[in-house]
């Protein structure tokens, strides 16, 4: 069975641009969460979507937005990119809407902002 997939794997942008990252959860999983992982740190929670509704939001500015589609795939959008947005962006899926169960992570998208 396919795991969580993310695209693209790598991305280079310049300051001020916007970016869209994509995630496809494991088949049957209805919850998708997004995390930002800066080098040397743990993943930081950005959003959780369950059944196409936002369930949780971390401490990120409004430049960050996301949505979940009817097929449960998800997009993370970041506007007006800053150098500090350079990070590994991880998507995780799970069966249920709660965050108290196993999260299955994708390989991530490495974003570099120049």
């Amino acid at each position, binding site marked *: 069975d396919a795991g969580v997939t993310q695209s693209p794997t790598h991305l280079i942008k310049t300051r001020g641009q916007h970016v869209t990252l994509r995630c496809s959860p494991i088949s049957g999983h209805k919850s998708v*969460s997004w*995390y930002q992982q800066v080098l040397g*740190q*743990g*993943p*930081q*929670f950005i959003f*959780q979507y369950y059944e196409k509704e936002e*369930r*949780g*939001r*971390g*401490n990120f500015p409004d430049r960050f937005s996301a949505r979940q589609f009817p097929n449960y795939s998800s997009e993370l959008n970041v506007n007006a990119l800053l150098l500090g947005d350079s990070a590994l962006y*991880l998507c*995780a899926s799970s069966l249920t809407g*709660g*965050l*108290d*169960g*196993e*999260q*299955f*992570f*994708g*390989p*991530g998208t490495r974003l570099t902002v120049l």
Partner: protein
Amino acid sequence: GQQVMQIPQYQHVQEGEDFTTYCNSSTTLSNIQWYKQRPGGHPVFLIQLVKSGEVKKQKRLTFQFGEAKKNSSLHITATQTTDVGTYFCAVSFGNEKLTFGTGTRLTIIP
């Protein structure tokens, strides 16, 4: 905000030695998860602990949840080179977001 502190930040051990990482919270936790992230990889779920004083084992790995449900530990017996990576604890405060600890990076000296 609510945080989980993890110690140590780094650990270098000789192959065959034991390794332990600790996760501490100032508030009582409903549950705690542990993940492993290999260099260049993504976090992989290891286990979830729910009950006070719970101890779970996976081969050479032993996970423990404190009696007060404010701390947890992961112990690896007789480390191997395949154990290299960063170990994270993660908790969900109020089930609103998953908060990861700072991680302990384990390196093995052959």
